[in-house]
Each structure stands twice: as C-alpha cells, then as structure tokens.
C-alpha cells in the first residue's frame, strides 16, 4: 500500500521473489542453450538462432503457464499466496523472455529477404483456410500484444486510472492470450517434433491450468452461500465464523459480501478489494483491519476505509442478529460508510 506512485515498492519479499524468478529463468535458459547441444550430440547442431528461439519461446510458455496456475492454487491453498504477491513481476519478465523469442525469429526466419521483416510476418504465409499450415504466427502476435498491454498497464497508476473493474477485465485477456499461445505452439513448433515429450508438455500445461481453475471454482462455489435479494437474509450461525475470518455470501446480483468476525463482533464489507478486486473474504483481520490476501491492502471492518494515510474504500453492509443467526441487509452502503458492528447477545433486527 502506498499513498503515492513509485515505480516499485521494494521490500524483502519482493527481492526474494525476483531473485528466485530470475534464477529459475536463468537456469532454464542455461541448460537449454548451453547444455542442450552437448546432450543432444547431433552430427550438426540445430542452428543457434533457431535453438535460442526455441529456448526463449518454451521458457515464456512455461512461465505463463505457472502465472496462470498461481491464482487458483492460492484459492485452493493459502500457502501459495506468497507466489501471488509479486506475480506482476513474473508477468513483466515473461514479456521480456517472449520478446527475445520474437527477436530471434524476426532476425532469422524473416531476415535476409527482399520483403521487410514485419511485412513478411503478415504476408509470408496466408493459408488461413487450412488447419495444418495455418499461419500460427498470428496467434503468437495476439499473445505478445496482450502480454505487452498487460505489462504496460501493470502498475498501480493504471489500476487507479482505468478503475479496478476495467483493469481486471483488461487483465483477464491473459486467458485468451494463453489459449492463443497454445494454438501457436500446437500448429507450429509441435508439428515438427518426433518426440512425444513436447506434446505431453503442452497437454500437461494447458490441462493443469484448466484443472486448477475448475477445482478453485468448485471450491469457491461450495464455500459460498448464494442468497436472493430479499429484505434481510440469513448468512449463517454466528459460531460458524471463526474469529479473524470471514464467511462470503454471493448475492443474486453477483456481488459478494464478506462477513467478518472480530472477537464477538461481526461486520460486513464488499468482498472485492479496491486495489485489484482481490477476495477480501479469503483474507484475515490483522491489527484490527481486514487484510487482502493478494497484496495486503487493509480496511477497517466498521467502515470499509483503509487506515490513514491511505484512501482506499470499499462498500459496507448492515448486519443484525436474529438469535444466533447473522442477518444481512443486501443493499450495499456507499464505500466508506460507517456501520455499527453487531455483537453476540444483541438482537438488532
């Protein structure tokens, strides 16, 4: 959290994250580029430019696969939340690796020709009517443009400027981009392979991303209560919510409400963090504030406001107790509206 825009708010965890990331990518490229030709022992090796393009391209695909796995993995098990914390650096590094792949391709397959490189990318293969032989490069171009767009807008300035809702929708383009890159690989590099391992790698990657998202969706659907927009709705018994945690209620209109327990008091705020729409209901109360599991943005449970000097605010909801049952008024209060927490023993409805 910050009250002003700075390029990167470095802290120890971010340093560790980035060092591990760079080391991982470095090891991958070192083994692929330096040791690959030695281990292969071909009579004449793959042309270095093509070999390097393969190394960077496959590395970018692997990185993107892991990026897409982090989100659902963290929903399934909060131990993975540290991987999510600095995910945007993961994304930006992926862009640079992908750009290097594109550089090798442009400077080799599209170089030395009377046709200018970029014109060649668009005109060299126009077999759009075929599956095999389809210009798979267009899928790569789409994926690259999306990665570029997401990296450029990854800073919080753009989040604020575009609003979290629009920013989130923009960044959901990563899913069609990933699908396009699967097609890019499947219709291109994969067609020339004699070993099954690359096909297995692609299937395992795409399948893993799909399976993790499906599992996270099912877990979320099972743990949420969907309720209609009547006057007051029953959330659950007070004892069903652990101190410092929340129960998430999904309203019929799609909005989610996080009902938090702090000691013997209960308060409700929107489940969507004002930062990146992170799931506040999966967070905890830390130092008296609801703390988002994604990036640690904090809000007071009583009024949905971030503590001074921060200015983020989320909508609040009114609660009441009916015996031991917590009742929720589904009409959201404007962001930052103070509410009176209900305590066990009260019957405020």
């Amino acid at each position, binding site marked *: 959290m910050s009250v002003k825009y700075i390029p990167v708010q470095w802290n120890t965890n971010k340093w560790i994250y980035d060092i591990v990331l760079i080391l991982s990518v470095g*090891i991958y490229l070192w083994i692929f580029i330096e040791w690959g030709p030695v281990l292969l022992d071909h009579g004449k090796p793959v042309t270095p430019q093509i070999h390097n393009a393969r190394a960077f391209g496959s590395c970018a695909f692997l990185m993107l696969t892991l990026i897409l796995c982090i989100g659902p993995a963290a929903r399934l098990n909060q131990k993975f939340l540290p*991987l999510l914390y600095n995910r945007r650096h993961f994304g930006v590094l992926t862009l640079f690796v992908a750009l290097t792949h594109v550089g090798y391709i442009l400077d080799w*397959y*599209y170089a030395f020709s009377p*046709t200018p490189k970029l014109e060649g990318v668009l005109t*060299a*293969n126009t077999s759009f009517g075929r599956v095999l032989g389809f210009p798979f490069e267009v899928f790569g171009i789409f994926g690259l443009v999306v990665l570029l767009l997401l990296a450029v807008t990854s800073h919080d300035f753009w989040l604020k400027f575009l609003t979290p809702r629009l920013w989130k929708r923009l960044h959901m383009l990563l899913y069609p981009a990933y699908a396009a890159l699967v097609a890019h690989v499947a219709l291109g590099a994969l067609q020339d392979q004699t070993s099954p391992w690359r096909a297995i*790698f692609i299937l395992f990657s795409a399948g893993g991303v799909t399976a993790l998202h499906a599992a996270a969706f099912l877990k979320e659907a099972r743990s949420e209560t969907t309720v209609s927009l009547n006057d007051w709705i029953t959330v659950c018994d007070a004892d069903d*919510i652990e101190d410092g945690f929340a129960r998430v209620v999904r309203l019929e209109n799609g909005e989610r409400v996080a009902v938090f327990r702090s000691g013997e008091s209960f308060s409700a705020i929107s489940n969507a963090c004002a930062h990146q729409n992170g799931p506040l209901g999966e967070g905890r109360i830390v130092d008296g504030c609801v703390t988002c599991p994604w990036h640690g943005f904090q809000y007071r449970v009583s009024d949905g406001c971030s503590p001074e000097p921060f200015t983020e605010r989320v909508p609040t909801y009114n609660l009441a107790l009916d015996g031991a049952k917590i009742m929720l008024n589904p009409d959201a209060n404007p962001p930052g509206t103070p509410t009176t927490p209900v305590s066990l023993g009260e019957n405020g409805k």
Partner: protein
Amino acid sequence: MSENRTPFFVGYLSAPKGLRSFLLVSIVSMLLFFAGVGWLLATTQPDPGSAGFLPGRQTLIGVLENKPYPMLHVTEGSNRISTGTTVLLSGGGKRGVQSRGKDLEGAVVRISGQALARGDLQMIQLRGGMQGLADMSDTEAPGIDVEDLGKWRLQGEICDGKCLAGAMRPGTGLAHKACANLCLTGGVPPVFVSSQPVEGSEFLLVGNANGEPLTEQLLDYTALFVEAEGRIERRGSLLVFLMDPTTVRPLP
C-alpha cells in the same frame, strides 16, 4: 467454525514462521522444475540432419541453365563439387540469381561462392557481381543430357532449396513455412523432398509442366505433406519435377 489455520502471508511483513519451511521447499522446487523442463525440452529436439555450408569457397565452370530455376551443369569441378554434377544456384540471403544469368542461358560461365549440401542436393550461394558469376561464353558449351523419366505421382514436402540444403537446420517443417515462402518469393529454387526415392534421389527441383518457374502456386503447399503429379526429367545429375500445380493436394 473455519478450519483454515494456514499461516497468513502479508507481502510487506516478514513471512510467518509456519510458512518459511514451505517457502524454502517451494523455492528449491521451482529451481529444480525449471531446470528439469529445460533439460527435457532441450534434449528431445529432433536431429536436423547433416545439411550445411561446406567449408571453403568453391569455384566451378559449367553450363548455365535458367529454367525453371538457375542451375549449373559442372564441367570443371572443385575438390568438393565434382565434374558432371548439377548444382542449384542462389544469391545471398533469401534471394535468387535469375536476373544475373538471364542473358547467359546455355552459355559456359565461371561461378564462385559458398557451397551447401544435403545428400546429393548441392547448391552454390554465389558471391556478388562478376566474382560470383562470370561470362565464359567464348568457350564452347557442351550438350547437357536430358532424360525423360515419364509421369509420376509423388508424395513428400515442398521446401525452399537453400534452407533445405543447410542454410538453416532444420530448414523444413511447418515452423519454417514462412521462411520457406519468403525464400521462394525471393527467387530461391523450390525442391520437392520425396518420401520415396525417385531413381535413387529424394530431392527434385520443381517447375511447372512447361519447364517454367512455379512459385506463387506453391506457397499454400510448402512445408506440408502433399501429393502431386507431373513429369520428371533428369537434367545432368539433377531430377526436375515438372509438376501440374492443379494436382497438388495436402495429405492427412
């Protein structure tokens, strides 16, 4: 009551003690995972074959034939290209040499450049200007043997002759299709790689039924496994597939 007792990570705070061993295992796992996948994908690349540039510059004398694409029937070879061989010609990069020899059809010329070879397919990438292709038309040109091998239906891949001969490894396949098309539109001779050898050779220069160049009609079919019909001629040591472009079709 919730059973969620996982230590809660907040990015700007120190990692909770209960999470540190998990994070350490995650870091080591990630490094090993990247290393393992890198090793797996690097070591399962197919062999690109033995094609490539031959060391040293080659200077050859022979009879120039321009159709369907420039080739030289060698009458005085070098230590690597023997007399009697027919070699394809190309320029630097993805360029042909049609314009350089257009007035020397059937004449004796001296060429100089870098040789590429894949099996019995040989190509010379000419040097620039007169050093690459010099007129020796004052020397009498010997006749070139042409043998009609009849009509054939072949299955295989249409490639650009230069990358196939070793300018790139691999110089075939769908990942290389755009490059092959750029080579062909630049004037590099197309070569049909037959899945079954024809008269002992699997590489055939491609032209149309009239012996003219055939480039535009091939671009949709390069890098695919295709079937095509046409007449085959042996010109010097090189097979030429005079293809009927209407018979080309991709095979499953």
